[in-house]
């Protein structure tokens, strides 16, 4: 059992909202925790941005005494510039770019195929 920095799911149905929380792995995901050190809203707001609050002071303290961030939290801290970028993030980004490229290619070929063609009997 070790102390983790992890996401605790709050919000309601179809509306997730995460608290970034320091807790031993034994505690329930949304239950008792040692301290809340931030929040993460996965749904973009009216300005099309996702907002993350991080209590940098306290996160630094907990990291210094050996708290382990979980992968999602590590990714958030990496994106914020506090920790190095997780290698999986580069991988996921490349996969997302490739997927987007193939999708746009296939939609292009679809649009060229949709031109009027003679009916086969």
């Amino acid at each position, binding site marked *: 059992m070790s102390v983790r920095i992890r996401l605790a799911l709050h919000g309601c149905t179809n509306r997730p909202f995460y608290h970034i929380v320091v807790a031993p792995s034994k505690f329930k995901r949304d239950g008792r925790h040692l301290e809340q050190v931030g929040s993460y809203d996965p749904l973009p707001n009216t300005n099309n941005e996702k907002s993350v609050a991080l209590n940098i002071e306290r996160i630094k303290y907990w990291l210094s005494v050996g708290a382990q961030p979980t992968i999602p939290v590590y990714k958030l801290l990496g994106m914020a510039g506090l920790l190095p970028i997780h290698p999986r993030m580069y991988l996921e980004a490349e996969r997302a*770019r490739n997927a987007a490229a193939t999708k746009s290619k296939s939609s292009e070929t679809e649009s060229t195929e949709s031109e009027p063609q003679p009916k086969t009997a």
Partner: protein
Amino acid sequence: FPHPSLPHAMANRSWLLKLAVGGLSRASCRYKSTQPPAKSVTDEQVQKLLTRMTGLDLDKVFKTRREPLSQPLYKLVDEHQLKKSQMETVQRARELLKMPPVLPQRKEKGELIQDDTKLAGLEDTNVVFTDISQTESNSSRRIVVREKNGNLRGATWDERDRMCQIYFPALGRQLTLPAMLQGNDLARLLKEQRHKEVLERANIQCEPDSKDYIRVHHMVYDDIDQRGLYDLLRSTRHFGGLLWYLMTRQLLKGILEEMLEKNQSLSNVTVVEGSCRDLRYPGDRTAVSNSSSH
């Protein structure tokens, strides 16, 4: 009553009006300068002048307004206590009439921190990270944005204000700029002579060095100057800002005319005129003689 140095025969008020206005317009023609004023708004002499010109009308400062119902309080006091409470009232009024800060527009933020295009495509929106440490103040709080293309940059002022308002809300402030401070609604409010309300709302909503604060304040001041509605802001905490704006732009013609028409003491008029010149040209002999006589 007329300035002691003026000859008795020339004490006619309309003549004095022409003299003051003519002198000013001649001065502005001669001294068209774009350099910043010689004194800053926080200068002791400038503050003294602005406070003096603002005036202190207790009936206006403590105007009757709607408040939650409460039992009226009656006190039986002797003359000494009455005088003391009157002085305390004047002191409270002076506190309420303190000028809000006049600052230049803040420089744009949003500098690039890290160029990381390999992360492009990971997120389809920007992600804004706000440091919610309790020991930081809003002005120094670290707020960064990881963009869709993978770049990490500092947040712009717009983003900063919004995030600070989300996590550390200031009383009375909205997330978006209220409609009454922009466009047609602002024009309508100015038409209805509700300049004070607009300025109060701007003071609550915006930071003193933000673009919107300065825009709204300048629009209000220009409107007041064009329509001669200086009395709307007299004995409010906004009058100092108005006067400073007019003084630094050499737009005193309207306000001095109004002061003379309202039979304001001529010493007040000469003080304003002299201080205006003093601001621009501290070495000017006439300015020095004017300021030294007061």
